[in-house]
């Protein structure tokens, strides 16, 4: 039961019931924000936030910096591989 999709919160529908509207590639749905709001993270602060959506609930905020870091690591691995390949070709 793991199908989660990133979406962006575009509107707060009902602050008391913790309901917001999320946009996934132009498709919008009302989702429950109870898992990502608390005293330090009031509901209004979630507008514009990217979240992981699963069965109608925002289950986690997506950390932009961590995402960039992961992609950066992937890029570095790609670079390293290219260098190895170049070295191997030179040796041939």
């Amino acid at each position: 039961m793991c199908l989660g999709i990133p979406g962006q919160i575009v509107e707060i529908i009902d602050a008391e019931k913790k309901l917001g509207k999320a946009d996934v590639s132009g498709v919008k749905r009302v989702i429950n924000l109870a898992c990502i709001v608390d005293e330090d993270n009031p509901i209004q602060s979630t507008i514009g936030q990217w979240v992981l959506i699963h069965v109608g609930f925002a289950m986690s905020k997506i950390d932009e910096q961590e995402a960039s870091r992961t992609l950066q690591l992937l890029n570095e691995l790609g670079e390293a591989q290219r260098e190895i390949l170049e070295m191997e070709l030179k040796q041939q």
Partner: protein
Amino acid sequence: MKYVDEFRQPEKAEALFKAIDNLAAPLSDKLARAVHIMEFCGGHTHAIFRFGLEQRLSKSVELIHGPGCPVCVLPMGRVDDCVALAERPEVIFTTFGDAMRVPGSQKSLLQAKADGADIRMVYSPLDALNLAKKNPDREVIFFALGFETTMPSTALTVLQAAEGNISNFSLFCNHITTVPILESLLDSPTFNIDGFVVPGHVSMVVGEKPFATIAERYKKPMVITGFEPLDILQSLHMLLVQLQSGKPCLENQYARVVQKAGNIPGLMAMQKVFELREKFDWRGLGEIDKSGVKITEEYAAFDAERKFAVPNLKVDDPHECQCGEVLKGEIKPWQCKVFGAPCTPQNPLGALMVSSEGACAAYYSFGNTKELLDKRQEARPTK
């Protein structure tokens, strides 16, 4: 699509495939067999097959598909219980789409619906609760299925129902937990998995600690992993690096979503609404201690098992079924006696062929069946 497309870039995958092969080859030589990596979660199995990743890996790495598919491990007896509940005239039975086709001993939920039972598919448990509010003269039951990923949403729905004094809403609770089954596999002497791709969305809820404990106790490399193809490939690379260094531990590849402590509001809701069962039956795997949850006394009014009588019978799989062995990674799907004939997605004998992420259904659609049937002939395990 943001946070999806970046992690699906095929150009970045090429470097990963090579890096994985470079690491795996010497490890495989040392082991005198392929390196065995198990992806536990059905969502990962689905992604691997959807993007055709397995074929691009060399023979030095073998992916073993684990039992983390809540639909696949649903015992037939529990499906029969669902059908019995759904066939009550006062009941609107709500479920995720995944569970509709799983065969019970007589019929699946889809067949029960065709026979007239009021069974409705929902996307969220909140939709089921809304149905209950809109239909006060009917009993709405939600089939709560899934690992810890889905437990917070179910628990929060129950809390909302309680707050709103909704008396015609209840759950048929089949939530199961990840750690006991993992431990049960790791305790088995024949289990030879070298590393684990850890379910990213379970970790999103429960945090790193449960899996860090397992990595520590069993000295196995474990990497919490996202669900896009680059996530999975990066995770394989990280596992192989750990194996190479001889320093197994838990790492988090999915840090953009998974926080160390997990999801606190979700965990708090789960704690209020659920408690562990002594044992729970897993299809093909038998009873596993403390592997399922039930609803606490405080929220008993929302427990369909207390509200209604269900047959509650233990129904064995057809004797030809080897689902259990496939789930444990002991045999490959095509090594099952009935794979492809007669067990097919059109005519499934076991849940692994019904669920879109079941290893058997995945293999059936991935490979030419005749070829796999031929492979079965060659690779039949000796008993």
